[in-house]
């Protein structure tokens, strides 16, 4: 892996983002394989709607913007409807499927789901939810000051240690 980037320590969002983006690396080192189903679903829905918008734009530039042309009218109607339906699906997916999930992975057929959040922009505490297999969701928090050096670099070992400790704790509860 490349060098870690320097993070603005006064920005809770930046700290959370850095931790979130390091999750795959941390869990890979703990022998977990990431599953991309959630993110791929979003990518598919998103790319499809962008393709629809792009197609309509191309058609308009090529054949003119004449609503009296019935074919164009119904093409537009179908395209616009599909676009907003897809966007609605993306919204529902974010609300009810993705939620705060940042990582989904497997280790020997055991599914692990990790969700992260911060309370607000002024509380530098990383709230993490762990779920292994069919265990109940376990919550743990850690202050960002324990995870980052004074000059703004993530302490990868402490971070992996924090995740490992929690995963082991939760794994014992799961059947």
């Amino acid at each position, binding site marked *: 892996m490349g060098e870690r980037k320097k993070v603005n320590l006064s920005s809770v969002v930046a700290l959370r983002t850095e931790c979130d983006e390091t999750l795959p690396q941390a869990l890979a080192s703990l022998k977990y394989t990431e599953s991309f189903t959630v993110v*791929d679903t979003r990518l598919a829905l998103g790319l499809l709607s962008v393709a629809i918008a792009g197609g309509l734009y191309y058609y308009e530039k090529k054949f003119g913007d004449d609503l*009296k042309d019935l074919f164009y009218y119904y093409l537009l109607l179908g395209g616009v409807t599909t676009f907003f339906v897809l966007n609605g699906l993306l919204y529902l997916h974010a609300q009810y499927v993705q939620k705060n999930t940042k990582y989904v992975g497997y280790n020997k057929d055991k599914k692990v789901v990790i969700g992260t959040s911060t309370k607000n922009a002024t509380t530098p505490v990383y709230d993490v939810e762990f779920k292994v297999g069919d265990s109940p969701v376990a919550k743990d928090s850690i202050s960002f000051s324990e995870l980052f050096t004074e000059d703004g670099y993530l302490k990868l070992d402490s971070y992996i240690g924090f995740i490992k400790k929690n995963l082991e704790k939760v794994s014992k509860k799961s059947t």
Partner: protein
Amino acid sequence: MNLRQQLIQGLNIAMVVCSAFMFWKGLALVTGSSSPIVVVLSGSMEPAFQRGDILFLWNRNQYVDVGDIVVYNIKEKEIPIVHRVMREHKVIPEVKTKKRSARSKKPVHEPGKVRQLLLTKGDNNPTDDLPLYAYGQTYLDREDDIVGKVMGYIPKLGYVTILITENVYFKYALLGLLGLSTLLQKE
């Protein structure tokens, strides 16, 4: 940074542009007008509209009435014009039938397609729009030329677009400010 994260980020940016475009197209479908929101560019409709007013158009009525303010396009001219309808004629096309009934001298009329022809004028202009129309054109066709009828407006809000298109310094100042804000913004 993996490929999926980059794709998601690109997608988020693309989605902003696409949503704006699709919202515009949706509005066009609802109003029946290919350009449902326009900005007044000239003072020819003062005191009703000033330069920079934003107009909302509706184009789902079969006919427009005398006194309505409409936006129209002239063939081979790019800028739409906002003016008031002064006169209208409805033209009922004759059906070309070879066998016309001997008793009736009246031409047989097709019941369907009636064309409405319009003459427009700017409230603030001394004469009607005949000189503005294309060469040889003596009327506007409701169906072919009218972009929509004005249903509402917001005063002055569109002046920004006039400043951007007509004032180079304003455009560069705005671009500079945008650039500066992205540079100074924390990620």
